[in-house]
């Protein structure tokens, strides 16, 4: 049985309850919509102040002793890949990098440059010979190249267009197909 006082309060309480439910439902729907419309983790590109700007200079000595200067690679897309031999995701992405490099080796329209992130050169030399790395791997003893690119931890990759500007930053493992899509998109934009 409902008392007269309860009966008087009921409409106000019901209204408040309905409003609270509407607000909670709206927040939840917005949350689900945001998550559903985000790109998948594999294709996600990171924010970076470097995007659209000239790539920081990358001049160094490769593990085989040769000199590397990324600015001499103008005219082709360059994937600058920061990696370390102690980094498990770096090992996981390696076959994808090989696939990407091999796919573009004949046409010569894109290439990979590896940069060692906080690792010993002996480990890197062994890695390069064991894994058959076919691209130059630059040592970065003071971490200055990583600093210039704003790298927080490997693997991180930067796609540089033919004019030498940073097109994309990828945090985490890369996939050859996703990289090709990025290059196609960049070409479609006339980069």
């Amino acid at each position, binding site marked *: 049985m409902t008392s007269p006082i309860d009966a008087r309060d009921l409409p106000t309480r019901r209204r408040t309850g309905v409003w609270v439910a509407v607000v909670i439902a709206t927040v939840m729907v917005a949350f689900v919509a945001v998550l559903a419309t985000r790109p998948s983790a594999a294709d996600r590109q990171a924010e970076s102040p470097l995007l659209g700007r000239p790539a920081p200079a990358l001049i160094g000595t490769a593990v085989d002793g040769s000199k590397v200067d990324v600015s001499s690679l103008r005219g082709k897309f360059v994937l600058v890949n920061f990696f370390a031999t102690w980094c498990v995701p770096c090992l996981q992405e390696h076959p994808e990098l090989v696939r990407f490099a091999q796919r573009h080796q004949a046409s010569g329209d894109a290439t990979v440059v590896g940069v060692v992130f906080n690792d010993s050169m002996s480990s890197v030399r062994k890695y390069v010979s064991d894994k058959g790395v076919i691209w130059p791997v630059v040592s970065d003893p003071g*971490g200055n190249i990583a*600093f210039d690119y704003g790298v927080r931890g490997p693997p991180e990759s930067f796609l540089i267009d033919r004019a030498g500007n940073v097109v994309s930053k990828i945090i985490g493992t890369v996939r050859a197909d996703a990289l090709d899509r990025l290059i196609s998109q960049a070409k479609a934009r006339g980069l």
Partner: protein
Amino acid sequence: MTRLRLSWLGALAVLVVALTIGSHGAGKPETPTRRAMRLAADFRCPTCRDLSAAQSDAETAKTMRARILDLVRQGRTDRAIRAEIVSRYGSDILLKPPASGVAGLVWALPVAAFVVAVAGLGFAFRRWRSRSTRSPTDDDRRLVEAALR
């Protein structure tokens, strides 16, 4: 003015002067290394979660400290050095987010939430008070009488 008041005023003056000198390091010029460390304390260590670049021993933090020191020695201002680092890592490398733009929400939202919470509590208290002072109707009295019979 009495002697007692004068002595209180004198003590207050001494306190103000001491605090002023203490807070400005007695006018001692800041060395480049100290300035670099002070600036490094404003940035996150790139590879750690909760440490500043001044506190961490990670290689990335050491590199950041060395680069800040270079910039200090080049005669750059604090603002220019902060801008240089943010231009590479983005504004989330700052331990204190900027108080403008979208990042400013970090400061604005807690204040807004506090205001809304206080307003909500005030509204609720008012409703409870008005409800408690509500006088019973004839129906209420009849119900109570019936229950007590």
